[in-house]
């Protein structure tokens, strides 16, 4: 039995029985899922021995199928940014259902402040405001978007913290309000033709860089700052947090504000990437973001989870989505399969927790 330097009072502490980090499980699951798709690709009769992960074409000398990896990461990056915020909300013991519609509403509003005057030499056919709103500096739409996100988050957080209504209800209401704002903003018409600078925010692989950059930032915030520690404490035992002197209400407002600002930022990147904003943008995003967090081991009861887990959860999510397309699974069945996988992830987590609890 190994003696630990942290051992105190003469009791032994067996390092080999220390908890296996949850993130490692998800990483193994990610590898397994990739393996399954690889095997399916090699064995399914209609697949012509394609490879899921590796590059089999002679013309290129790369090992991996970079195009596929790029697409996998790119398609989860924007929802992944939302998931970073949702992770914090869930760790604090709440839930945020409003992030998807918030993406729609923010995209509409932000795009209105990012329009360019001349389109192909003629006036912008999608103009929302008058002359003054054309070709504004790029910082302005970003600030407007983040401020809108902060406002929605502050309302969410205040409702939950001060009126003590369940987060599910508060954010469900905000879900409808935001979708309404998105539709009312231009009476349903799309907003298009952003300035060149704005379009650059989400072009190419930019969403991926934003995703990983923000993931690193919030990983550090959750792990190394008082804000992070208090988020875990509140999700773990709200009464204890209150009795320990944490201003729980203020903290909750802050958590929801940060989450909504991340969703608003995702909307900026998404509208920039698509060069347009539509009121229907971000449908299902709130659920996908929650799914990424949950697959990544964030406990819906609060107190447990990590940004690393959520990033891995997003990867699992992307690999599964891409893999379904790769094995030519009908799009109609993809949603169903996704649902099964999310439920499976939660059940697995539950089983793991109970096993860990009975082992002591």
């Amino acid at each position, binding site marked *: 039995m190994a003696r630990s330097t942290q051992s*105190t009072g003469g009791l032994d502490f067996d390092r080999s029985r220390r908890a296996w980090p949850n993130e490692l499980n998800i990483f193994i699951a990610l590898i397994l899922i990739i393996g399954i798709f690889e095997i399916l690709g090699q064995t399914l009769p209609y697949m012509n021995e394609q490879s899921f992960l590796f590059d089999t074409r002679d013309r290129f000398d790369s090992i991996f199928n970079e195009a596929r990896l790029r697409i996998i990461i790119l398609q989860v990056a924007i929802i992944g940014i939302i998931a970073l915020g949702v992770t914090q909300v869930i760790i604090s013991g709440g839930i945020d259902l409003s992030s998807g519609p918030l993406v729609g509403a923010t995209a509409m509003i932000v795009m209105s402040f990012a329009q360019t005057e001349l389109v192909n030499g003629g006036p912008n056919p999608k103009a929302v405001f008058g002359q003054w709103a054309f070709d504004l500096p790029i910082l302005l739409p970003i600030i407007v978007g983040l401020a809108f996100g902060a406002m929605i988050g502050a309302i969410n957080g205040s409702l939950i913290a001060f009126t003590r209504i369940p987060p599910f209800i508060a954010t469900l209401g905000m879900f409808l309000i935001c979708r309404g704002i998105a539709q009312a903003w231009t009476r349903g018409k799309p907003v298009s033709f952003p300035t060149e600078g704005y379009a650059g925010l989400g072009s190419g692989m930019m969403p991926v860089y934003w995703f990983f950059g923000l993931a690193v930032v919030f990983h550090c915030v959750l792990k190394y*700052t*008082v804000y992070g520690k208090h988020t875990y404490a509140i999700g773990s035992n709200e009464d204890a947090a209150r009795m*320990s002197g944490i201003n729980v209400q203020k903290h909750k407002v802050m958590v929801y504000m940060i989450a909504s600002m991340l969703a608003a930022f995702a909307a900026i990147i998404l509208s920039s990437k698509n060069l347009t904003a539509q009121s229907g943008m971000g449908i299902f995003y709130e659920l996908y973001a929650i799914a990424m967090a949950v697959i990544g081991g964030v406990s819906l009861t609060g107190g447990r989870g990590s940004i690393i887990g959520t990033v891995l959860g997003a990867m699992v999510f992307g690999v599964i989505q891409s893999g379904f397309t790769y094995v030519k699974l009908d799009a109609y069945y993809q949603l169903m399969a996704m649902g099964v996988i999310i439920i499976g992830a939660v059940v697995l987590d539950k089983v793991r927790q109970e096993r860990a609890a009975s082992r*002591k």
Partner: protein
Amino acid sequence: MSEIILETRGLTKHYGGVHALNDADFLLHKGEHVAIMGDNGAGKSTFVRQITGVEQRTSGTVSFDGKEVHFSGPIDAREAGIETVFQTLALADDLDVPDNLFLGREITKCDWLGPFRLLDYKAMREATLAGLERTAVKIPNIRNTIQNMSGGQRQCVAIARTATFSSKMTIMDEPTAALGVQETAQVENIIRTLKDNGEPLILVSHNMRQVFDLVDRIIVFRRGRIVANLNVSETDGQDVVAYITGAKTGAEYEGAA
């Protein structure tokens, strides 16, 4: 007698029409360990809640360390030097021992970052080990989360908080109510350590043996009033039970209940 650390005069708390606590005059000297006993609903926990600022008293005064105090919350009380181990453990299950010990009063670096100021894990870990050492609390691995600990270990963590921060007074509300024999013994050892260190303690307990083992003085509550103030050396279990049940009332409290 030595200096007085805590004194209440006419401490009263009404919940609507319910007079949960009436006119409680209480004294605690430095280095003294006092037990509060009484039946369920006698006002023990109410009394503790008024001192620690969890609730606001209806009337009366509380003086702590020579000054009259008005705690607006448990944080105020803690900052003044009153550490409380609550009946419901105020621990966060998913955090480890140092995190719990320092919850709400973390040692931080770069304080200009406001809510995002950095945690000084190393300093907190060292202070935790020192605190556990001082109370002789045995916890195999302080990095373990609370959910993986036994009831006794949890209670020890809760109590170790008081030792980690140099508090002037400790209040424990039924610290061994849910513990096994061994675990109870461990908690009682910590209490003895506090006694040896000269830290005053208010112990709320139902356990007669424990009370007679550990404290100097017993205060009995009945129906919201203090009905007896007994030196352990001058009383016995039967006597205390008589006071608790109302068969007897202390001479100086005659007519109170």
